[in-house]
């Protein structure tokens, strides 16, 4: 599909995209690691927020800095950085999430040479008033740090405009999920994932337009209805991994929802566009479903999963996350148990290295779909 082509192209080489963007616009590129990065502030500064997912290249240099028991995202990102593949970056932002990212930030700060480095030590519990206030202050400080770091001023108008853009982008991405849910023949999950991956690195203004065009196009196209397939909800972390969507679709499955930070969590929640803008950004994070490295009650993620299964009439759940990922590994047993109580089948796929996981996944996925 032509309209998806631009997204796919970016995904095939996001680093090249960023380099070209920089050359064309003369703007700054700010790398970041997670959906708790308030992208709006970066966009408001005229810079490009660039989500680092790692290129999946073989690890060699990073081995001198990180033990083998850290996840492939952390190791892969450092490898790319040490190899100079990220030399288009003007800075990096590390929102505090897991212990591995926390130490990666230190190692990164000590061994790489980007002009700007920010640790956004967001609160870990998100269900109290003091945490919300603190989060707001972290975002305010980040805005100031960007201003000093790059010698610019971000006024309220700029921030407001960035928030509007990101709200538009989020609304469009949500719309795409809606379309896939109701008419899966109109957009494949692997295509949708490409759109998401591109969205996290693309110039956000251009992205907003491209998404609008894509939606109009998809809505108007006539495609034959597909035979029914098994409806799957994905849960876990898609920080960096092989294309599981193709695998699921070729095993007669259809992804109907996920709780990935590179999926639904990226678009869920709208930021209020008037008033105290930093507070509004914080509020979106507070209200949105948490990442497992954050706390918002002890059943938050399990309940969310059940809710989404019901809403989307799912047949089964696939847990998928990286080996050595503590937050996800800790949540898995209780979430699986909650599913069992409801009689919902699930399978776990733990990914070690990006490259080597494909074949295994195919076999297990097919078996799981048969079982459903």
């Amino acid at each position, binding site marked *: 599909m032509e309209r998806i082509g631009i997204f796919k192209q970016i995904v095939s080489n996001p680093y090249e995209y960023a380099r070209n963007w920089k050359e064309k616009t003369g703007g700054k590129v700010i790398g970041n690691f997670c959906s708790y990065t308030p992208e709006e502030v970066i966009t408001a500064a005229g810079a490009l927020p660039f989500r680092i997912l790692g290129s999946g290249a073989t690890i060699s240099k990073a081995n*001198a*800095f*990180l*033990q083998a*028991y*850290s996840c492939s995202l952390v190791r892969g990102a450092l490898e790319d950085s040490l190899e100079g593949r990220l030399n288009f970056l003007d800075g990096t932002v590390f929102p*505090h*999430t*897991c*212990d*591995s990212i*926390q*130490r*990666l*930030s*230190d*190692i990164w*700060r*000590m*061994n790489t040479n980007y002009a700007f480095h920010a*640790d956004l*030590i967001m*609160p*870990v*519990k998100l269900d*109290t008033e*003091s*945490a919300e*206030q*603190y989060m707001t*202050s*972290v975002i305010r*400080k980040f805005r100031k740090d960007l201003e000093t770091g790059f010698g610019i001023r971000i006024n309220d108008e700029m921030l407001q405009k960035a928030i509007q853009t990101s709200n538009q982008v989020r609304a469009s991405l949500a719309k795409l999920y809606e379309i896939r849910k109701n008419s899966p023949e109109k957009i494949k999950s692997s295509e949708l994932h490409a759109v998401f991956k591109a969205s996290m690195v693309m110039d956000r203004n251009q992205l907003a337009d491209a998404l609008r065009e894509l939606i109009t196009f998809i809505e108007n196209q006539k495609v034959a209805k597909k035979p029914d397939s098994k409806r799957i909800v994905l849960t876990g972390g898609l920080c960096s991994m092989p294309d599981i969507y193709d695998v699921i679709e070729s095993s007669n499955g259809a992804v109907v929802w996920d709780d990935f930070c590179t999926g639904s969590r990226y678009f869920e929640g709208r930021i209020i566009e008037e008033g105290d803008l930093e507070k509004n950004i914080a509020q979106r994070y507070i209200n949105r479903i948490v990442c*497992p*490295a954050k*706390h918002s009650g*002890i*059943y938050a993620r399990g309940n969310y999963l059940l809710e989404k299964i019901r809403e989307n009439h799912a047949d089964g759940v696939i847990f998928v996350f990286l*080996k*050595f990922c*503590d*937050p996800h*590994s*800790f*949540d*898995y*047993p*209780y979430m*699986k148990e909650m599913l069992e109580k409801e009689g919902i089948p699930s399978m776990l796929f*733990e990914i070690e290295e990006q490259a080597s996981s494909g074949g295994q996944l195919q076999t297990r996925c097919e078996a799981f779909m048969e079982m459903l």
Partner: protein
Amino acid sequence: MTLTEKIKDPEKEKRKIKSDKKMRDLMTAYYIEAKTPKEQTGKKIAWITSGGPVEPLQVMDIIPVYPENYGAMIGASKMGVELCEKAEQMGYSSDLCSYARADIACATVNGGPIGGLPEPDMLICCNNICGTVLKWYEVQARYYKVPLFILDTPICHTEYNPDMKRYVTTQIQEYIDFLEKICGKRFDYDRMTEVGKLSIQGQRLWQEILDTTMNRPAPMTCFDAFFHLAMIVTLRGTKTAVDFYESLLAEMKERIAQGIGMLPQEKYRLVWDNLPVWYRLRWLSNKFASHSACLVADTYTSGWCSSMQYLDENDFLGSLAEMYTRIFLNTGTDIMADNIVKMVEKYEADGVVFHSNRSCKPYSLGQYDIQRIIQEKIGIPTLMIEADMSDERNFSESQIETRIDAFIEMLK
């Protein structure tokens, strides 16, 4: 029993730390009280993380219980593997912290050292040591269905800023409110002042005890510190800890006066980084001793007084936030490196032994950088041992032995 076993080697006897027995008795008494049915003691039980603020619990007459200390007991009694495997059957990945795995599994079985921990009435989780404890305590909050209080201490990579201060200070008040609600009684602020004084005294004494190893020969090693640490962790803020550490310190001073070292011969002085390898303490201690290498200091046991400088004796409660937020594990890798460099200088060490601990990512990731920093700044040999503090499956004796031997060669 043969005759030779009954006659004690006077040389060895002389070097034994006499306070060991007292320590054991006190810890036993502590666990007996904790395990006495609540109807008899009338006291509530809180499970708390090792870096959590225990002092307010003392004020409220709540008995603090430490799953991490229990994890160490599990490791030392070589029950780690069995319990970790049990956790893995429950669905927990073998890559998770072995304290967490062992404790989670232990809660569901009838067993473990001292027959298991007494059930908690509340859970107090302070994330100044890691993100693991947050997830671990969530698991236990679901299992025991008791209230969970999270003290969220933002990591200070490079700074402790006013926003953090405000946030943590507010939470200390929330913590007190939480305790008042659960206990149904007011918080006694005067008593807090007293407990605070005892806590500071205990920490000072502990630091003084650790500092006695600046002497040559060192009157104790870090293996002894690993053992005597339990007191500052579990009974911080009590008179018991202060009294015991006073006598332990006196014993150390006496040993120094008499020239008694822990090792028959002390040729090399080393610093240890990271948690102990609980199930191989004896083996490691003998191994180093056989080379006349004395582990004079470590980053782990000194962790419980690593942020004493931020405590204000006259405003304990007010300074609690900063002291608990700025413990060394909650700072940047470069600050942790500085800490080791200072230790090497202070204790005049000849080398550093790093335990790359699979279980503990916040402590271990970054060690390669620290190793390089030490080599650049002081140019002394360092050794990296790959292991795990409680899960024996990650310990390869022959490999570690070879590496230790080679390392000692470098010291010569």
